[in-house]
């Protein structure tokens, strides 16, 4: 067993969303491989949340021009508010150096980035480059197709990051790579001419409760069938398509045997879509939740879901995975997604739901799920979850093994 794993996520700054949950899941999944696990988030993550999860706070926030972080959490340094690329790199290197020195990180340790961000990754590469490869820790980069692209100069950082990784791999540095979806892994493997594993979320005890309850049941579906659109509501997650889907169902199902629960847009976006959201709100049987939900509220939301919709923008999700999908398959909740996103391959492969060709097909597919018998669906989802958890857990173990 190796000494310590530093699970690093400089983007983990908001008290909600998948960064906190991801950092938690991967920290816990790493425990069997290391004597000590040290999760490190952004200094902007509220202190109470960091304490609750046992996260250190070690990274300035480098992405003010990408993500609205309230500076109240921590007044950021003047540097971090700058959009200057060199300053950001310098700031990230400084943070990483501080962590490196504080913990006296050695070749017996590992640095693990569960969702790679550009400045965090560039900083550790720069720092390691100053040390000879045998003296450096193992570095694990998990690509999810989001913040590895984010630079303050508006250009995608991925090509530069991949170029540097390639150089480091050639020089003998111990870097292991994975991606969240098979499609993205294949793309990265092609760019880097090396193996790139596929590592989705490892299954976590939080996720398997729902399936246990279903297994204990066996009765037909309850009167109300709840269709949920979880995750931070965003236009690129199909928010603006929901009215068509919901209203079609409501016309067919006026007695509301199917209900919908959706998270609303964040305030800044919401003010630009007031009329649309009003119309969504006006559909009988639609409940709009707050845009940000705590981990507990998210768990509660999953627990009442019979079906989850993922009408994501296929261009934006061409390589990306879906944390919501991974949560759903682990909990035995079927999903319906719009064809084209990278995670659709996984939905089909595991039989974890349906992929439809267009928004207009969602309503019909929802009705199919509404009337399929519960035991049939349980068996199907149990099998999907079984295959997924074996693959996800094994993929993680295999990847973690030096």
């Amino acid at each position: 067993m190796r000494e310590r794993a530093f699970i690093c996520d400089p983007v983990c700054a908001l008290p909600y969303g998948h960064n906190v949950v991801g950092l938690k899941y991967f920290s816990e999944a790493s425990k069997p491989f290391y004597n000590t696990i040290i999760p490190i988030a952004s200094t902007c993550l509220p202190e109470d949340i960091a304490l609750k999860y046992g996260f250190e706070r070690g990274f300035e926030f480098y992405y003010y021009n990408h993500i609205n972080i309230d500076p109240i959490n921590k007044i950021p340094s003047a540097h971090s508010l700058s959009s200057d690329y060199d300053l950001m790199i310098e700031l990230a290197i400084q943070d990483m150096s501080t962590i490196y020195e504080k913990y006296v990180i050695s070749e017996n340790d590992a640095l693990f980035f569960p969702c790679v961000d550009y400045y965090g990754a560039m900083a550790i590469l720069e720092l390691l480059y100053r040390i000879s490869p045998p003296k450096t820790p193992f570095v694990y980069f998990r690509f999810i197709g989001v913040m590895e692209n984010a630079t303050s100069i508006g250009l995608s950082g991925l090509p530069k990051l991949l170029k540097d990784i390639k150089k480091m791999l050639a020089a003998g540095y111990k870097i292991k790579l994975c991606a969240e979806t098979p499609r993205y892994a294949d793309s990265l493997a092609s760019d880097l001419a090396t193996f790139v594993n596929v590592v989705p979320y490892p299954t976590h005890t939080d996720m398997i409760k729902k399936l246990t309850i279903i297994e204990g049941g066996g009765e037909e579906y309850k009167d109300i069938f709840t269709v949920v659109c979880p995750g931070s509501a965003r236009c690129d997650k199909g928010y603006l398509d929901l009215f068509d889907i919901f209203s079609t169902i409501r016309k067919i199902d006026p007695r509301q045997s199917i209900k919908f629960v959706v998270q609303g847009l964040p305030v800044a976006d919401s003010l630009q879509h007031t009329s649309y959201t009003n119309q969504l709100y006006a559909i009988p049987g639609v409940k709009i939740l707050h845009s940000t939900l705590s981990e507990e509220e998210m768990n509660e939301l999953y627990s009442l879901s019979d079906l989850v919709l993922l009408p994501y923008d296929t261009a934006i999700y061409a390589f990306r995975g879906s944390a919501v999908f991974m949560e759903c398959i682990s909990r035995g909740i079927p999903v319906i997604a719009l064809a084209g996103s990278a995670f659709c391959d996984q939905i089909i492969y595991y039989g974890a739901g349906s992929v439809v060709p267009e928004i207009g097909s969602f309503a019909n597919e929802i009705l199919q799920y509404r009337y399929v018998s519960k035991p049939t669906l349980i068996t199907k989802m149990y099998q999907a979850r079984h295959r997924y958890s074996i693959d996800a857990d094994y993929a993680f173990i295999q990847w973690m093994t030096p």
Partner: protein
Amino acid sequence: MDDTMKTLFIDHKVHAKTRSSDFFLALLRQNFKTIDVEYFDIESQNKIKALNGPRVYDLIIIWQLDFLAPVFISLGYPTVVIPMYDGSANLPFEHWMAMNNASVICFSRTLHERVTAAGCRSYLVKYFLQPCKESQLPKFDSLRGILWMRRPQDGLNPKLIDRLLGSQITTLHVHNAPDDGNPRLLKDPVYLVKSFPVTESRWGVTSNDYFLALKRANVFFSPRMSEGIGMSMLEAFANGLLVIANDDAVHNEYVANWVNGILIRPDITNVFELNIQEAKDLAYNGWFGSVNGYQEWLDTRMHLIEFIKDTMLMPMTTCKANPHFMSAILDAYSLGADAYGHFLREHILSRHSIEHNQKIALPLRSLFHKLSCNSSVLDAEGLFFGTSPKSVANKFGFDKFDSFTAYLSSQMAGFSVTHNEFIKTDSEIVLSIFCQLENDDDNNWLMLIYINQTLITQKMLPKKKCDFTIEIPVLKGASSRLDVLFSFIPSQLDFINIELPILKFFSVHLLEI
């Protein structure tokens, strides 16, 4: 029931007659032992007893008169505000920011969104009335309309229905009871229609005629362009009528277009086809929405009461009461959104508190930052209105700038100056403002002058064309920043038609006496 809490419910005087807040008051009475009710008339500005007597209330609940909230908040009262979309939709964001220490209950999602963006603690309620039984739903053998003609001046009249649906409507009942003025003459060419027969009712001793007509109809035309709660629309939903309403809140928060009703834009919607089966399906969806919605409202009430009670736990400001603050805020409010927003920025909101209030949405914080004005520095040479480099830049209520002058453009005007560089703190000082009345004016204009929210003096404007100086004593120990506000009140209280005096402002000086 809480045995100890004393609560004051403040409502608009008109609701004492319409009883439209009674359902909420009844809910409060079920949950709070002592509820006193005061009705406030915005026009006569009657005194609110709670502001003039000893402090006896633990909680203030303000229905619709949300501009009163800052007064109570500034006095440190736990305050609950229930604004209405039709009255408060166009108020500036500063209005909501000034309520950050209050709890807000919104019957409109649109309003809830604005209120939340401004950092307030807000609770969204979707109210429904008890629906009729399914067996009592109206028949859809023909389309029988009903219109409560409340706002004919907005185009919501029989002519509109004729234009949109023509002879698809077999009969129309008009409840001829406008919000303003007398019932209209339906034979007047402005309202006369030929495509369908029209029956008519008016308010009698009871509202029976309206409700009987509602029961006979199956298509309901919403009577206003927008609503705060939309009681008549909710009645229609509850009785299984197809609702057709203008596309604005709260209608568009209840009517999903062509799902459970129809949204129109009277100015642009053209004739449309409405077959009977479709009308029946839409109406059924609306009715069933009220079946579930009513149950949800019943389930919500307990949470709503908890939300109100939790107001007591919110941190309160401890400002010293200012007897003139209420009249100042009313002046500003009655002068329109710009003057009101400016007043709030200058007198209630501080940039520091906005920037550090985590709940205020970032775009609003930056908006506020842009709008907030700096005070001009007043030195021994004085300051000039107008466009000069030394202009009193922080201005509102002034217009038509020349190099060194500005004209009064509203009944409220103000500016801010900072002066500490040349005045000894123990001196008696006056702020001297040089002006000119450019016309003879028969009105007796009273000018109220506030400095830093305190009414300092009041003066009558001259009646004849002349130059004059307004001298305002500055209190000893006043802060170096002076927020100066003029409120001009005419002797004849016809605010809409009255013309402002043509008043020209030249300069501001600070003089030692």
